[in-house]
């Protein structure tokens, strides 16, 4: 299987695959992850504050997103949005779907992390004269982020791998690019193993960053 020709193919295609990893896969995951975190914080805050109506809307959002497959969500957006007159290029559409999808999961993570902050600290914040948003910003969210960081980062790592699903809506990301190269050479397996290794490298680096990040964030004087 790994004859001279295959080796040459692997060597020559490596930069091409990596290029799409760096140019498409990672940016897609990174942008979607940031947006999903914004969504998650907003949705978690609505639920934490128990805001009527908005809270119900958030529950429905979480219910639908967590109850349907990501692949199906991508398809529905791809074929559905144009019918509503919304034209977006597939990359943008993928960013939107991934953000909305991950937002629903991370919202639950954030909510649990916010609820883990003892309520007494909220009361103490009121007693020193702070208002709700000031308490959120200075007390609750920083602690919640610290708690949620490992889970959120795991979600990012999963998302890097899940971006391969974007190929289903014509986004040429790292996996699609690999498929194209494989199709031209009729030499599938070695190239799929190669792209698997690139995903592995990405995720290994991210895991390393995750560990470092946890150290930097520290735990407010608690030695672990």
């Amino acid at each position, binding site marked *: 299987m790994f004859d001279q020709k295959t080796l040459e193919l692997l060597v020559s295609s490596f930069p091409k695959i990596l290029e799409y990893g760096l140019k498409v896969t990672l940016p897609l995951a990174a942008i979607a992850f940031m947006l999903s975190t914004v969504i998650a914080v907003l949705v978690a805050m609505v639920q934490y504050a128990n805001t009527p109506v908005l809270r119900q809307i958030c529950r429905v959002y979480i219910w639908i997103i967590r109850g349907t497959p990501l692949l199906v969500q991508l398809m529905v957006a791809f074929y559905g949005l144009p019918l509503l007159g919304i034209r977006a290029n597939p990359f943008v559409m993928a960013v939107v779907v991934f953000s909305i999808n991950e937002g629903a999961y991370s919202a639950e993570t954030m909510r649990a992390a916010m609820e883990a*902050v*003892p309520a*007494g*600290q909220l*009361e*103490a*914040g*009121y*007693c*020193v*004269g*702070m*208002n709700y948003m*000031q308490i959120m910003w*200075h*007390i609750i969210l*920083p*602690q919640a982020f*610290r708690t949620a960081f490992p889970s959120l980062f795991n979600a990012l790592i999963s998302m890097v791998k899940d971006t391969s699903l974007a190929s289903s809506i014509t986004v040429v990301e790292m996996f699609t690019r690999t498929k194209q190269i494989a199709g031209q050479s009729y030499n599938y397996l070695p190239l799929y193993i190669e792209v698997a290794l690139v995903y592995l490298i990405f995720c290994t680096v991210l895991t390393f960053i995750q560990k470092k990040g946890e150290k930097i964030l520290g735990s*407010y*004087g*608690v030695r672990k």
Partner: protein
Amino acid sequence: MALLEVKNIQKAFGENGVLKGIDLTVEKGDVVSVLGPSGSGKTTLLRCINFLEKADGGSLSFEGKEYDLSRITKAEIADIRKKTGFVFQNYNLFANKTVLGNVTLGLTSARKVAKAEAESKAKEVLAKVGMAEFADYYPSQLSGGQQQRVAIARALATDPSILYFDEPTSALDPQLTAEVLEVMRELAREGMTMIVVTHEISFAKEVSTHVMFMADGNVVEEGTALEFFENPRMDRTREFLRLTSN
């Protein structure tokens, strides 16, 4: 004119009437001890006065302004809270902030005081409670007594007109209790106005100007500390003092 006057404050949790129409008057410089058996509503009273719990009825006048407790607005609550301080039984320090951060936050965030000014104020109140050297520690690195002294500094930093204490030493062992009580004694000497819910009878005897004794959501007896401890009028008070003094 009284600094704080609470009239006919009422609170029920469902069917359970916890405050059944309590009156309380606090003049500037008073140290009022609130005594009473467990479950009598002492914590609920303090929490209602500082709006951590919504009272069902009654009125409150603070620094000359009168408020209807069942109809008080968020803005009015915020105004009153800017001039009061609260010390909790279990400290409730902000876990993500250092000692200095805990003490300055009420100034920098809620009152938009410049950081440098807030920090110099914080150092002043931390010195007062004997915690100046611990400015860079996190709450988790401190003993209970140290945490409570920081909590007192946090409450003092904003120059409140009155401080509320809810059993500030009941989570502490005797030695740590002593260091916290010493700080409170000093505040009393300086003329700080305080309402102190406490089980420390000897401390109440020594420091308070007035005492209020509650049971089952009612005031059983109140008076100056001297009257209350030397000449209690009610049987229930005498019984309570007898049980708690040995």
